C-alpha cells in the first residue's frame, strides 16, 4: 500500500493545478490578514472562502484525477495487488496531497496570525473538509463510468452541499416556524459536512449570539465537549461511509 501511495503522491505533487491551488490559498489568506486590522474579522472572511473553495477544489480535482488514472488503475489491477489496496491508496494519496496543500496554503498562515482555539478549529475543519470531499468524489467517480458525467455529478454535489442545502434548510425553517424545531436543526445540520464545519468554527468565535434562539440551542449542544466529540465523529463518518461504499463498488467493477 505504501508503495502505491508514494507513486500517487509524487504524481499529484507534479500537477500544476495543485501548485496553483496552494498558491491561491496562500495569497488569499495573506492578503485577508494584511488588509484587516482585526484578526478575528479576517478569520471570518477566511472561513467563508475556505468553506466554498476547499470543498470545490477537493471534489473536482479528485474526480478528474480518478478518471485520469484509469490507465494506472487498470495497470495495477492486473498485478498481484488487492483491489481494496489500490483504491485506498488512491484515496490516501489524494487526501494527503489536498490536506497538505491546504495546510501549506492557508493552515500555516492562519496559525501564524491567529494562534488561538478558533484558528486551530478553522485549520482542523479545513483539513477534514478536504478529506471528506475527496471521499465523496471517489464515490461519485466509481459509480459513473463516463468522465463528463462524473465531473458533472461532482460539481452538482458541491453545489448541493454549499448552496442548495442551505436553501432547503431555510425553506423548512420557514415552513415549520411555529414548531420548536431547534433540536431538529442539529440533526439536519449533521447531514451537511460544510454546515457542521461552519457551526464548529462560528461557535468558537462567540458570534453565535447573533443566531438567536437556535444559536443558543446550538451552543448548548456543540459547545460542550461531548457535543464537539460527537460532531467530529459525524465528520469522520462523512469520510468512512463514502470510502467504504466506494471500495465495495470498486471491488466488483469491470475494467
Amino acid at each position, binding site marked *: 500500500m505504501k508503495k502505491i501511495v508514494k507513486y500517487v503522491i509524487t*504524481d499529484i505533487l507534479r500537477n500544476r493545478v495543485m501548485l496553483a491551488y496552494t498558491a491561491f490559498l496562500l495569497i488569499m489568506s495573506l492578503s485577508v490578514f494584511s488588509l484587516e486590522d482585526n484578526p478575528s474579522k479576517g478569520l471570518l472572511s477566511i472561513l467563508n472562502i475556505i468553506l466554498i473553495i476547499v470543498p470545490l477544489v477537493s471534489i473536482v480535482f479528485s474526480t478528474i484525477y480518478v478518471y485520469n488514472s484509469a490507465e494506472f488503475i487498470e495497470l495495477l489491477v*492486473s498485478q498481484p495487488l488487492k483491489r481494496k489496496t489500490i483504491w485506498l491508496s488512491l484515496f490516501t494519496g489524494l487526501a494527503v496531497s489536498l490536506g497538505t496543500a491546504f495546510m501549506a496554503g492557508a493552515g500555516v498562515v492562519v496559525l501564524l496570525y491567529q494562534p488561538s482555539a478558533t484558528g486551530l478549529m478553522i485549520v482542523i475543519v479545513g483539513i477534514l473538509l478536504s478529506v471528506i470531499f475527496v471521499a465523496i468524489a471517489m464515490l461519485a467517480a466509481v459509480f459513473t463510468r463516463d468522465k463528463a458525467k462524473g465531473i458533472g455529478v461532482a460539481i452538482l454535489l458541491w453545489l448541493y452541499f454549499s448552496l442548495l442545502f442551505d436553501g432547503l434548510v431555510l425553506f423548512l425553517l420557514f415552513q415549520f416556524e411555529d414548531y420548536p424545531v431547534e433540536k431538529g436543526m442539529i440533526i439536519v445540520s449533521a447531514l451537511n459536512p460544510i454546515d457542521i464545519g461552519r457551526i464548529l468554527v462560528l461557535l468558537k468565535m462567540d458570534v453565535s449570539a447573533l443566531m438567536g434562539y437556535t444559536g443558543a440551542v446550538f451552543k448548548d449542544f456543540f459547545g460542550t465537549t461531548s457535543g464537539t466529540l460527537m460532531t467530529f465523529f459525524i465528520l469522520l463518518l462523512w469520510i468512512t461511509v463514502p470510502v467504504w461504499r466506494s471500495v465495495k463498488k470498486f471491488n466488483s467493477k469491470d475494467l
Partner: protein
Amino acid sequence: MIIASNVTKQFGKLKALDNVSITCEKEQCIALIGPNGSGKTTLIKCILSMVVPDSGFITFNGKNILHNWEYRSNIGYMPQIGRYPDNMTIGQVLDMMKDIRGNTQQLDNDLIEAFELGAILHKRMRTLSGGTRQKVSASLAFLFNADVLILDEPTAGLDPMASEILKEKIVLEKKKGKLVIITSHIMSELDDLITQVVYMQDGVLRFHKSLQDLQEDTGEIKLAKAIAQVMTKSKT
C-alpha cells in the same frame, strides 16, 4: 492450471461470455481465436479478475480466484492496448512494476535488451508510438518470469523484426514448461507456436482441440486454412 467453469458475463444486453468452460495445463501454448467481439479479451480479463463474471468460477492451481489476489504474481499479462500513466517515463514504469512485484531475484531482462528499451528509458509514456508501447507491454509481461503468460494480440503494431524477437521469446518460454495463452488474428504467425486451439464465437466456446486434432479433422496443415474451413462451416 487454470480451469474456468461455466463462466458467463453480460454487458447490458450483450452476452460477452456464455457458459464458457476451459482447462489450461502447463506446457501448453493455447491460441484463442475468434472473430472480433467474440469474447476473447473478456475471457482473458476474467482470468485476471479485471472483469468479474456474473456466474461460474475460475480456479488457478486449484484455488478459486475470487477474493484471491496473490495468484496474479504467477501471471505475466500483455494487454491488447497497453495503457500507462502518461507522465511517467519508461524507466519509471519498469521500476514501479519491479517495486510492486517485489521479486527482483529472477528478473528476465531479455526483451528489454532485445527491444533496446535501455536507450529510451527517459522517454515519457505519452510520447511513445503504439509499437513502442507494445514493446514495453511485452517486456513487462516477460520481466517477472511468471509461470503463465497471457498475451492479447502481442504482435499487433510491432514491426516485423520486433515481432520475430517476440515470437522467438515465446517459443523459448514455452520450452521452459510455461503455459502460454495467445490471442491473435494473424494465423500464420501462430503456426509454429501453438499446441492447442480454442475457437470462440459470439461468447460461446465452439471447440478446444489440440492443433494435431484440428489438422486431422480438417485435412489442412496450415492453421489459417483449417480455421477458415471451420468458420465457413459454422456459417452454413
